[in-house]
């Protein structure tokens, strides 16, 4: 809708533009600048052109190999947590009460993990999963299952996945719950009258009506999990070995550990592009879904 114009509105946007320029554009330019240079410390830089990017894309090089394997870990991690959190979130949303005092109680309970800061979540789980003093680790070991996230890569993965599921499933559930609440009663009544099974109600009414919020949930969870840093850093420190070294951890190692600013800059640009590309795909899917909506329902003209 192009509303009647009022150019004064731009004045109000200026402060935001200024802040964005300082906080995003200028640092980004710095990163771009670093990515085409090499440094040996002492603030001395040498022109390196597309060298870092070439190395980045070459799996046989050290940088390329590290990036590729951590990218693989990132994708695996995002895939696993989406595969768990989305169905689980839907299931939780379906099980949530629809009316009465229980609604408020459930909502508060569900919101709790979301309020815990990332590093605190990491610390909680680091202790919780320890074999000697952690409740979880101790209990699992007592059951005769060997479990030690410090030495066993599988245990480390299980721990960070469990941690993320614990932390973020409620977000998916709350979004789905909002979607479910917007379905008019008449749909459920019609389904009962049509003799639909519980599964059919889910498949043909609840799922289609939840689709939009689900896309948002998947998008949010993907972006967030793809950028995961704090929790594995606190719990496993990227180990054992490199088994939980994600792109972000690799990046920090390069930039702060080895002071390879050029490599790190090139990598973070690539990292950014991957996220942007995936988001673009999601965005396209979402808008295409919108196009499918009938004109009559959006009331375009009348």
């Amino acid at each position: 809708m192009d509303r009647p114009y009022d150019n004064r509105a731009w004045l109000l946007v200026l402060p935001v533009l200024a802040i964005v320029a300082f906080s995003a554009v200028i640092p980004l330019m710095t990163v771009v600048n670093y990515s085409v240079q090499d440094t040996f410390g002492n603030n001395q830089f040498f022109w390196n052109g597309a060298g870092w990017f070439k190395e980045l894309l070459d799996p046989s090089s050290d940088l390329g190999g590290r990036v590729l394997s951590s990218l693989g870990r990132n994708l695996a991690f995002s895939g696993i947590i989406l595969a768990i959190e989305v169905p689980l979130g839907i299931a939780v949303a379906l099980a949530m009460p629809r009316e009465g005092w229980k609604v408020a109680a459930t909502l508060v309970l569900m919101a709790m993990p979301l309020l815990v800061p990332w590093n605190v979540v990491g610390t909680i789980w680091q202790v919780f999963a320890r074999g000697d003093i952690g409740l979880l680790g101790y209990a699992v070991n007592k059951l005769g299952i060997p479990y030690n996230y410090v030495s066993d890569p599988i245990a480390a993965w299980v721990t960070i996945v469990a941690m993320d599921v614990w932390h973020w499933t409620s977000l998916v559930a709350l979004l789905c719950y909002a979607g479910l609440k917007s379905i008019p009663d008449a749909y459920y009544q019609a389904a009962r009258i049509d003799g639909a099974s519980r599964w059919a109600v889910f498949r043909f009414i609840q799922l289609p009506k939840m689709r939009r919020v689900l896309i948002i949930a998947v998008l949010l969870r993907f972006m967030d999990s793809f950028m995961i840093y704090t929790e594995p850093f606190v719990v496993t420190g990227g180990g054992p070995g490199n088994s939980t070294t994600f792109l972000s951890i690799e990046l920090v190692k390069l930039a702060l550990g080895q002071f390879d600013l050029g490599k790190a800059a090139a990598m973070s640009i690539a990292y950014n592009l991957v996220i942007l590309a995936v988001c673009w795909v999601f965005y396209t899917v979402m808008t295409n879904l919108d196009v499918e909506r009938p004109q009559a329902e959006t009331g375009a003209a009348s």
Partner: protein
Amino acid sequence: MGLVLDKVRRDVGAVTHIHETSLRLEPGTMTVLLGATLAGKTSLMRLMAGLDRPSSGRVLATNGASETDVTGMAVRERSVAMVYQQFINYPNMTVFENIASPLRVKGLPKSEIAAKVAAMAAVMKLEPYLERMPLTLSGGQQQRTAMARALIKGADLVLLDEPLANLDYKLREELREELPRIVRGSNAAVVYATTEPQEALLLGDYTATLSQGRMTQFGRSAEVYRRPHDLITARIFSDPPLNLLPVAKRGGAILLPGGTSAPATGALAGLADGDYQLGFRAHHLALKPVSPASLSFEATVTVSEITGSESFIHVVCGQADWVALVQGVHELAPGSAVTVHVDPARVFVFEADGALAHAPAFLSAA
């Protein structure tokens, strides 16, 4: 204050929502926008309100003889009130506070607000509910609250977008009666959008008929009803739907579908040879001959509907579906044959391209 739309047009992307439209709204009158869903009624109202900016053309505010260009002026700076089909009130305020809210924004003194709200509540018959919350009221009361809030602003332009559509039939009937009285008491130009021809006749001093984003006619309601310029307008302004009959005029005869013919009498005699569409409203289709010159048709009853004092007889005549509105209770069995009659003096004649060729004489009720 009045409002003039001067060759206003609105495109959204490649789609034209409103084709070039010009009309003049006089203060103290009600203009009805009549058309089906998606005909462009709301789009046109948004242009009038200044919620949307026309792609071309001007919007002028008139005051007596002076005209001010208000195209592109923000809606906030104009004197406009709008009521929607959905009942929109502040749910956490009492009815009194709801009605008073525009006055509070203006910063009127308390005593004046109280007096004005009391007067408006009396007109809208809301006095017993002033201390209630809107959601505890019936739909009709909620909508009256919304209308009171819109009218109390004393806005120069009041836009009512199908305000009665979500109300019970009887409530609609009552508000329909009250509305003209309320409007005429103000100096506002009032615009009322509806899909129902009956409302246009009852409420509108003027009617603008709309179809697919195009204003097909604008004029005094009775004039538009009785002399529609074209077939589209006649169809928009007929409920039950307009009955249609394609004919051809050859010399002194009218050739009817099915190979029969009738002598061209009265107004039909004056037509040039060619193809025409005859249109007649349901109450002009009768089960008995109505005049010696009546055209008669053999038809088959599909459904008869009784409304108490009247019956709607749906018939199929050749290819055409017709409705006859007849006085009294007539329960005709579906499938039965019936002869229907229409007085040629009561038919509209449209050219092949839809333009009006002839309208029946203006009677006191026709």
